[in-house]
Each structure stands twice: as structure tokens, then as C-alpha cells.
């Protein structure tokens, strides 16, 4: 029997992804739709001996093919042979959701209408008569509450039945389709036609609402009551900062750091010890033992140690996103952003920058005004992406062990403050046109579905594991070669190519207190990928001469790194180094994305140079003022 092809469509925030996760579990493939950076999720399941493939289409409010998502949804629905299209509707916001439903029906696409979030709807006094709903649209209707097994079974029962064949559009829908065709053929301008189409659609929606939906008056919803404190008024910003502070405590003090410490021991002591002994006993040449242990294990291991922190941070952010709180941050930040000439809408792509600068820079496309878009692109790299997190965690743990979470939190705040100051500066000088208006729908607060949160955490975090095994691995080999050879052949590390390059670079940082060639080399390598800063430090400070004192060196790799770093940095110069790393030139991939999104090499050059200059000045101020204050 052939595989049943099902597509899930619907507005954003309708619980579509939760239903997709419930239906398919871990059996998912994530890729990109051709030609665009929009996620393509396909999952598989079996039910009643039928193989079912489910495509989770991007959430859209309409299918006017104006945005990449809308185009993807229309192209996919019209050009693929699908057995079933499920329109996931947020029952608590049914009137607005029906706009997409009506547009899909206009295309002649038979739909299974999934009235999701029934629990939220009932709480808000919305009663939907499903029988009448089926009659008025002529399409089958299923009621679900997102993450319940019963709801999933109900959907799967319909998928594997022949129920769709019994339905055809109601007379009301057929009449609407005729009206739409007449409007499209009336020869008026595109704008006039769109206005008439919207009127016709809302007229049909009104009829459906009158016939099948009863909206009672139950006063403010639970979300509105919570928003009274969390999204409005004087308490909103302090609560936001408190929540963020809690996330950092969880990540760097309570959960993430203990796991990172365990992994540090496992990789940089136990595994290194084992590999050194094993390779030496097997008779592997000394230089190759050194490459594997001093280069690859030290470099990749230094980065891998911090991956648990990245996963814990992403878990917390995914959890907050699942509750609906992340969307409120745009509102909370709106007054601050407005003072910088931007709108709260600009905070959405910026928030992506805490994960990775690349999607955040691309996300600026969603901003309407050219000014907002360019400013957003240029300030995003100031934020602490996941790849900078290992640098912060390493230095904070080593130089400020009692206040590690506070120091890293301060670095995140520094990134945000610098982004805001620079946005203000750019808005006042280079980009003076008016910003756009800001409209954003706030999803209701919900208890997040743990399965979705875990899957999302994995989706976000696994890229860092892939990077450790690919670019960091390759960079570690390159750095080992550069730190053991010069153009005459093998040499002492102080005479190596890396030492020469690092030495040139370090001359720029005499006033910042970190003018060692090792620090210069780490900064230079960080332009390749920010994690490489930690890999370089791991290689340069972490390992001894394994070829001569193999076991001793392996036993004490972590301790040796601490001792070497304590010699090279003071607490103040380490803090200045963290500040510089937080703010300086973006990585190569982010620069490539800036070229693509901002449209030219001049913006790449501008971004690379002005960020380096700002980082240089701020780290200089931190170090010199710190010295004056006696730190």
C-alpha cells in the first residue's frame, strides 16, 4: 500500500508544530525548501498498517505569495499529489484563522479542518458547533487540544479513513468561489481587486461565525491577566531581566556548568590520557601523537566541553518560547528600541542572534523599512551567539569562578547595550529614514510541551556538535601545523607561523593588557569561527610536549591550561579579552551573510572594521579604567 501524503498548514502559533511532533515523534527530517532558508520538516509514522508521511508547512496568515513562506505553501499545495491537507486552526482565535482557510478553499483544496486549542477556546468562552461548522463549509472537522494522545489518534483515524471522499464544498463556499472568480475577472486594478477579495472573504467568515460559533463574554483571559504584569507597566522590564538572570544561573551555575566540568574531566583528562597511552604504545610517531592529542583532542575537546552549556541555554530559551513569553519581549523592548529609532519588531531577528548571527541577519528581511533592516543587520553581531558562549564560559570559570554566571550575564547585557547604542548612532547618521509601524500577535500563555521543547533544543544545539566535528576539527589540525612549523620545517612553538602571526596581532592590544602572541593568535582564529578562539587557547595553553612526557602531560592538561592562562592574563586583562571577543569582527559566515543581505562588499568591510574598532576602544576603556580603579 502506498504512503499516505499529508500536509499540515495553518497560521503561525496554532500549535501546528506540536501536532507535527506528536504525529511523527523523532522520525523527522529537517532540510530547507529549495532556494530559500525556510525550514522544511518532513516526518513519518505508521498507523493501522498505513505508512504516513507528514509535511509541516511554514505558518502563514494568508497565501498571497508575498513572502517566501506564502509562496512555499501555495507551490507545495498546488504542485504536489497530496492525500490530505490539514488546516490547523487556533480555535481561540478562530475568526482570524479562517482567513487562510477561506483562501485555501478558494484554490479548490479539500481540507481537513483541525480545530486545535479547544481548551484555550473554551476558557475564552468560545463555543464551536462542529456539526454546523462542517455543514457551513462542507469540509470535515476534527477537534484537538494539541499534545493529547487522544487528539493524535483522532487525526490518524481520519487520515486512514475514506471520510474525505464524502465531503464537498458547501453551496455557501461554492457561491464564494464564483464571487472570487468574478472579482478576479472584473479588470479592476490589483489593489482594488485585493480590497474586494478581502471584503468577500470577511463576508463569508462572518456568515460562518454567525452560524457555527458562539462567543460568550467571560472577561479578560488568563493570558491577558498575566500580561498585565509580564508585558505591561513598570514591572515588565525588571521581570524580563530577572527571568534572563535565572536562565543564566541555570546554565552557568546550577545545571550546565557541572555537566561541562564532568565533560572537561572526561575529555581533557581521561580520554586524552587513554589516547596518549594507546597511540604511544601502538608505536605511532611522536609528531602524530602530538597532532592527535595536542592538536585535535585539545582543540575539539576545548569546544565540546562547553556544548552542554549551549544545550542548557537553548533548552531554557525553547521552554520560554513554548510558554509564549519570548513574543512578549518584543513589546517589552519596544519603548527602548523606539528611542533608538527602531521598533520592537526589530527585536525578533535580534533575539535570534543569541543563537546564531547568521539566521538573525537573514531574519532582518522580515523588517519592512530599509533603515530597520540595515541597522538590524549591522548590530546583530554584537550579541552573544552560541559560538561566543564557550569563550565567555571558559574565561568566566577560570578567572571568576565564584561569579561565573554574573560575569557571563554581564557580557550578554554588554552585547545588547552596545547593539542599542550603535543602533542609535547608525539611525542618527547613516540611516535616517522613518522606521516602520509595529504590529505583532501575542500567542496565549501555555505550558510548553516537553517533547517539542526537547526536539527544538536538539535542533538548535546539534549544529554546534557538527561544527566541532568539522570546522573546529579542521581548524585544530591547521592550528597545530601552524603552531609546530614555520617555513623552514618543524620548530619550537615560539618560532612557529602561528606565533609570528599572533605576535603581529598582539601589538594592537598592548593597551588592553592581553598582548601575548597566544591571545593575538586566538583573536585572529576567531574570525574563522568564534569557537576557534577556545580551540586555539586549548591547543596553545592546554597541552605540553606529549612526545617527551606523554602521560604526565595528559594527566595535567586541564591544570596546565589553567596555570598557563593565569600567567598570561590577569583577572582584568581576561575581562578585557572577554569584552573584545564579545564585540569584535563577526565570523566569516556571518560576514558572508552580511554581503548577501546588505548587498555588497562595502558592508562586509564596514562591519568588519567598525566592530573591530568598537571592540578595541571598549576593551581599552575597560582595562584602563579598571587599572585606575585598582583592579
Amino acid at each position, binding site marked *: 500500500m502506498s504512503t499516505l501524503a499529508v500536509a499540515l498548514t495553518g497560521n503561525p502559533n496554532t500549535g501546528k508544530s506540536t501536532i507535527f511532533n506528536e504525529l511523527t515523534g523523532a522520525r523527522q527530517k529537517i532540510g530547507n525548501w529549495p532556494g530559500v532558508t525556510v*525550514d522544511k520538516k518532513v516526518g513519518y509514522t505508521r498507523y493501522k498498517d498505513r505508512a504516513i508521511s507528514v509535511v509541516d508547512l511554514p505558518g502563514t496568515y494568508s497565501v498571497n505569495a508575498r513572502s517566501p513562506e506564502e509562496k512555499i505553501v501555495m507551490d507545495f499545495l498546488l504542485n504536489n499529489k497530496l492525500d490530505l491537507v490539514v488546516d490547523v486552526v487556533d480555535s481561540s482565535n478562530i475568526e482570524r484563522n479562517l482567513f487562510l482557510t477561506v483562501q485555501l478553499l478558494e484554490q479548490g483544496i479539500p481540507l481537513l479542518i483541525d480545530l486545535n486549542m479547544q481548551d484555550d477556546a473554551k476558557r475564552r468562552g468560545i463555543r464551536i458547533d462542529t456539526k454546523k461548522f462542517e455543514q457551513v463549509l462542507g469540509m470535515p472537522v476534527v477537534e484537538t487540544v494539541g499534545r493529547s494522545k487522544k487528539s493524535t489518534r483522532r487525526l490518524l483515524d481520519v487520515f486512514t479513513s475514506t471520510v474525505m471522499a464524502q465531503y464537498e464544498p458547501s453551496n455557501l463556499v461554492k457561491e464564494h468561489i464564483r464571487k472570487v472568480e468574478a472579482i478576479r475577472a472584473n479588470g479592476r486594478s490589483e489593489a482594488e481587486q485585493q480590497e474586494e477579495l478581502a471584503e468577500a472573504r470577511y463576508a463569508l467568515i462572518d456568515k460562518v461565525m454567525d452560524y457555527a460559533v458562539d462567543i460568550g463574554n467571560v472577561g479578560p483571559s488568563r493570558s491577558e491577566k498575566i500580561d498585565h504584569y509580564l508585558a505591561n507597566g513598570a514591572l515588565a522590564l525588571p521581570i524580563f531581566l530577572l527571568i534572563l538572570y535565572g536562565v543564566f544561573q541555570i546554565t552557568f551555575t546550577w545545571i550546565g556548568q557541572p555537566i561541562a566540568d564532568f565533560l572537561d574531566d572526561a575529555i581533557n583528562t581521561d580520554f586524552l590520557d587513554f589516547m596518549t597511552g594507546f597511540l604511544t604504545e601502538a608505536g605511532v610517531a611522536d609528531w602524530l601523537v602530538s597532532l592527535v592529542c595536542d592538536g*585535535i583532542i585539545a582543540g575539539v575537546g576545548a569546544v565540546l566541553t562547553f556544548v552542554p552549556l549551549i544545550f542548557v541555554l537553548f533548552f531554557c530559551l525553547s521552554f520560554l518560547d513554548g510558554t509564549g513569553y519570548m513574543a512578549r519581549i518584543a513589546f517589552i523592548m519596544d519603548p527602548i528600541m523606539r528611542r533608538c529609532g527602531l521598533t520592537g519588531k526589530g527585536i525578533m531577528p535580534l533575539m535570534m542572534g543569541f*543563537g546564531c548571527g*547568521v539566521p538573525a541577519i537573514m531574519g532582518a528581511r522580515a523588517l519592512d523599512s530599509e533603515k530597520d533592516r540595515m541597522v538590524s543587520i549591522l548590530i546583530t553581531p554584537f550579541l552573544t*551567539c552560541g559560538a561566543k558562549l564557550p569563550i565567555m564560559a571558559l574565561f568566566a570559570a577560570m578567572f571568576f569562578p565564584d561569579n561565573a554566571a554574573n560575569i557571563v550575564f554581564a557580557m550578554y547585557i554588554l552585547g545588547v547595550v552596545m547593539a542599542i547604542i550603535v543602533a542609535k548612532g547608525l539611525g542618527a547618521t547613516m540611516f535616517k529614514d522613518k522606521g516602520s509601524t509595529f504590529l505583532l500577535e501575542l500567542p496565549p500563555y501555555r505550558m510548553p510541551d516537553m517533547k517539542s521543547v526537547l526536539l527544538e533544543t536538539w535542533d538548535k544545539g546539534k*549544529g554546534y556538535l557538527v561544527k566541532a566535528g568539522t570546522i573546529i576539527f579542521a581548524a585544530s589540525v591547521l592550528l597545530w601545523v601552524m603552531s609546530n612549523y614555520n617555513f623552514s620545517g618543524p620548530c619550537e612553538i615560539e618560532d612557529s607561523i602561528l606565533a609570528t602571526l599572533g605576535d603581529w596581532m598582539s601589538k594592537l592590544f598592548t593597551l588592553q593588557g592581553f598582548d601575548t602572541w597566544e591571545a593575538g593568535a586566538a583573536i585572529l582564529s576567531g574570525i574563522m569561527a568564534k569557537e576557534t578562539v577556545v580551540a586555539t587557547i586549548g591547543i596553545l595553553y592546554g597541552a605540553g610536549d606529549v612526545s617527551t612526557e606523554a602521560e604526565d602531560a595528559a594527566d595535567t592538561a586541564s591544570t596546565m591550561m589553567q596555570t598557563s592562562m593565569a600567567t598570561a592574563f590577569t583577572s582584568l586583562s581576561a575581562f578585557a579579552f572577554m569584552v573584545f571577543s564579545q564585540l569584535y569582527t563577526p565570523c566569516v559566515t556571518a560576514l558572508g551573510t552580511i554581503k548577501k543581505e546588505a548587498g555588497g562588499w562595502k558592508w562586509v568591510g564596514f562591519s568588519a572594521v567598525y566592530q573591530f574598532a568598537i571592540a578595541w576602544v571598549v576593551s581599552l576603556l575597560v582595562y584602563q579604567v579598571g587599572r585606575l580603579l585598582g583592579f
Partner: protein
Amino acid sequence: MMATLLVGLLLLVALYFALRHVVRNLREGKEDCCGGCPGCHGGCNSCHPHA
């Protein structure tokens, strides 16, 4: 000698696959940590704030 050759070969193969991945990413404009977007539900779906 044999052990050196074997480990060296293994490293070369691993390096080949690592570099191939890096070059492909560069050519296709992809970034592994694109999934790290708190506004999106996984993956590099950066054009829409919430999927």
C-alpha cells in the same frame, strides 16, 4: 610505522570529510548553527518569527 600509517590515513579521511562539509556550507551559504534561533522552531527558518 604501520600504526603511524593507519592513524595518519584515518586522520586524512576524517579531514577530507570535514573539509568537504565546510566547503559545501560555504558554497551553499549554509551555517551549521543556524538552528540556534530562539524565535524559530528549529532549523534555519529565519524568515518567519514563529512557524
